């Protein structure tokens, strides 16, 4: 049955289309019989919505999970992680251990966050505990840094107070829902500049959880020098690292695009801070990604027709602690530099090799276990099936902060990388 894969997309990006064409796939429209649909998040909503009654057949693959927003909407992500932590605590799991200040030892990786207007009063209580802190307001449903602003005074978010006379209709609809998170005002600076990490994570199934980390992530640097001073709060070029915002700053450079590879970061940190703390940092980053996926796995519709490539945004503070800022369901496929184009092209290529094995017409009943050779620049981040095969006692040995054996990122065991030694 050597028919060619029929593809559809509603995202006109060359990195996608070039990859489809190089596989000899055939472009069709969404009304025809298609095998592969790379869709935007709006489209996935309608495909799986109750009204459409769309039924995907076994030879059809799509690039989103139906309810990905459990992970990719800022408020739901936080909600799911909080729920996950409480569940672990109830079970008495050692992962949910807290320190003397009540902070989770292993699961404190999301900055303190509240939903507005729902948690307004809780937020005010927290705000008053440390009145000099800065908070970042983010609209739940937007991306690319749109609508984000920083506050350090309660008056700046009067609008979201439930008692406010001005709020009436506005804040109740989900479209205007915001999350407010404690702003990390001690980010790790390199060359005096703030940056964040963009890592790509491919999930082929949530039950069992199987995810891959793309080795070629990158750091996005702000073009303007970081200063925690309050007068700069309004200068988004200092605080936000989204490329969409930085691109319009005066100093944006089109050769390197203000980006560094993760391997540069690693080289710099190892050279200036030492190997142990650098390895620990990267282990922790892998840990928080896996924990975030485990947190949403129970509520995720792990539809067999779906896979998803997420863009994880992580900030490292000056104590070398990584913080999960958000997860994007549709990481940008626009290329801001030549290097960028190559990276994204390869990303899609490797993703397709895993999601649509051999580039042939898919059969969604397969076990979703690709052979090691097709991973390309991906490496296995966590494979629940493999991990469970090792017995439950591995769980205790594998927490971050304890020695995890050979360094992450250098796989020496055939068939399985060190990233899966803990559950």
């Amino acid at each position: 049955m050597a028919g060619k894969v029929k593809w559809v997309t509603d995202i006109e990006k060359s990195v996608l289309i070039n990859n489809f064409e190089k596989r000899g796939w055939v472009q069709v429209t969404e009304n025809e019989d298609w095998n592969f649909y790379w869709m935007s998040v709006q489209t996935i909503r309608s495909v799986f919505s109750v009204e459409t009654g769309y039924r995907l057949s076994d030879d059809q693959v799509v690039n989103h999970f139906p309810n990905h927003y459990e992970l990719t909407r800022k408020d739901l992500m936080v909600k799911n992680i909080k729920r996950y932590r409480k569940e672990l605590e109830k079970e008495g799991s050692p992962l949910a251990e807290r320190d003397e200040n009540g902070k989770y030892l292993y699961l404190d990786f999301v900055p303190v966050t509240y939903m507005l207007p729902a948690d307004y009063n809780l937020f005010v209580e927290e705000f008053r505990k440390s009145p000099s802190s800065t908070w970042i307001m983010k609209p739940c449903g937007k991306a690319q840094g749109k609508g984000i602003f920083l506050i350090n005074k309660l008056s700046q978010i009067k609008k979201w107070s439930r008692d406010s006379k001005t709020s009436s209709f506005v804040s109740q609809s989900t479209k205007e829902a915001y999350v407010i998170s404690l702003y990390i005002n001690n980010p790790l600076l390199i060359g005096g500049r703030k940056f964040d990490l963009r890592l790509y994570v491919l999930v082929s199934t949530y039950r069992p959880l199987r995810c891959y980390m793309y080795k070629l992530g990158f750091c996005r640097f702000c073009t303007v020098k970081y200063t925690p001073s309050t007068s700069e709060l309004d200068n988004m070029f200092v605080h936000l690292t989204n490329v969409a915002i930085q691109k319009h700053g005066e100093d944006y450079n089109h050769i390197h695009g203000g980006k560094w590879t993760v391997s540069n970061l690693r080289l710099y940190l190892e050279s200036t801070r030492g190997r142990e703390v650098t390895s620990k940092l990267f282990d922790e980053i892998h840990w928080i990604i896996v924990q975030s996926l485990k947190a949403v796995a129970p509520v995720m519709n792990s539809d067999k027709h779906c896979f998803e490539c997420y863009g994880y945004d992580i900030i490292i503070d000056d104590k070398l602690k990584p913080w999960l800022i958000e997860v994007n369901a549709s990481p940008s496929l626009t290329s801001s530099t030549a290097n960028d184009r190559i990276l994204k092209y390869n990303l899609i290529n490797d993703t397709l090799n895993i999601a649509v094995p051999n580039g042939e017409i898919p059969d969604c009943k397969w076990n979703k276990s690709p052979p090691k050779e097709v991973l390309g620049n991906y490496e296995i981040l966590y494979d629940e099936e493999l991990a469970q095969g090792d017995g439950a006692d591995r769980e205790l040995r594998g927490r971050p902060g304890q020695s995890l054996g050979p360094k992450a990122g250098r796989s020496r065991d055939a068939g399985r990388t060190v990233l899966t030694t803990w559950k």
Partner: protein
Amino acid sequence: NQASLQRPEIKLESLKEDIKEFFKISGWEKKLQNAVYSELSVFPLPSHPAAPPEHLKEPLVYMRKAQGSWEKRILKSLNSMCTELSIPLARKRPVGEQKELLNKWNEMGTDEPDLSLFRPVYAPKDFLEVLINLRNPNYENGDSLSFRTHLGLIQVPLKVKDIPELKECFAELGLNTGQLGIDDSTQVPPELFENEHVRIGQKVLAEQDSAAAQQYVRQGSPTALRAELWALILNISSQPEDILYYEQLKTNVIQHDLLVDSLIYKDVKLTASNDDYYFVFEDYLYQVLLCFSRDTSVLSHFAYNSASPPKSYIRGKLGLEEYAVFYPPNGVIPFHGFSMYVAPLCFLYHEPYKLYQIFREMYVRFFFRLHSISSHPSGIVSLCLLFETLLQTYLPQLFYHLREIGAQPLRISFKWMVRAFSGYLATDQLLLLWDRILGYNSLEILAVLAAAVFAFRAVNLMEVTSLAAAEAVLADLSTLKVMPLLQIFLFATVT
């Protein structure tokens, strides 16, 4: 002091031994050894007692003359830029400007002065033309071509090593010796070499022994130990007086503006700011290079540098020695790409004063040789000749072919060597290369690597038919792994 000599424990008979013992225990013995070792590494071997000081700079007259003319040209170019733009070579900043600069000290990169009228004083290719025209007046090449004729661009008779001599010199790079950059790759179990090598490195650091560190890094330095090892080899220890000295230089920058500052800005903006690896450190580069220009302690290296610091005269006092000043104060005029000497060091040192000290020492030990005309084996002339000779001797077909199509290999590799490959190799590879520069206290490895790169891409190069096409084949070195290239070229090529 007197009082302590009176103490009963001090016995005159054993004073000599006691002092020796004290040195050993307190670590001062090691420090003295390191300091002596450092001096030995930097200064040339003792020469004939009757040799004049110029011979320490450069023994050959024709080389000295050529360097002198080159310097005159550079200075003329600088002075004419100065006159054209009506900008003084130096001026004191008004107080307001001083305050502003102090506030912006950590982010000078955001400053965008109008640099469009400034041009670099010279670029590597200008310097290459000078070297190509170097001739020894006492040497007769003869008009008839023979198999001895050197077909390259450099036409001076300096002695350079051949592969058997290089193999002896770089013995630790041999196939049977473990290397970082080869034996630490992911396929090799760390128990075979890497773990032990790291352990030895930590021991060397604990002992604080410069000579041992230098020997050690010949096999490459582990990433996490490199910053300390290089500091140990260069004998940099960042005492309070060093930090103070750096702060003093910073004050000089704040108070006075130099014309060369604009040249530095321009250079950083043109090179490091556009580099994938180094753009992050743009501000550190200003903080280092502006201070470097004002550091008169750098003048002492001219004792063994064939170059001499340019002299300028206070306005209106031309020719009067009492009014002569060196310009810039450190005597070093930056050229296009100069900032790339500093950039890779930013991956290792994040305190400006430490970064500064390391760079300064690297400059007065190594980098100065890459842009002054001398007969020294690590000087750029020798490196060029070594490169061309290696190619002509061991890859004659390739060399001849490139020459025929008007693509003299040196025209392509010159810029790599002048910059010690900074900005051409991936940073981790560059650092492995510079490990060996420090380890062998020689820059010859740059010429060997350049030849090895040509050898590696020989197949593609044999097919090109123009200089432009040859440049294209060699445009991107960012994926190269330097140690395997060097090892294959030196130890696995049929000689």
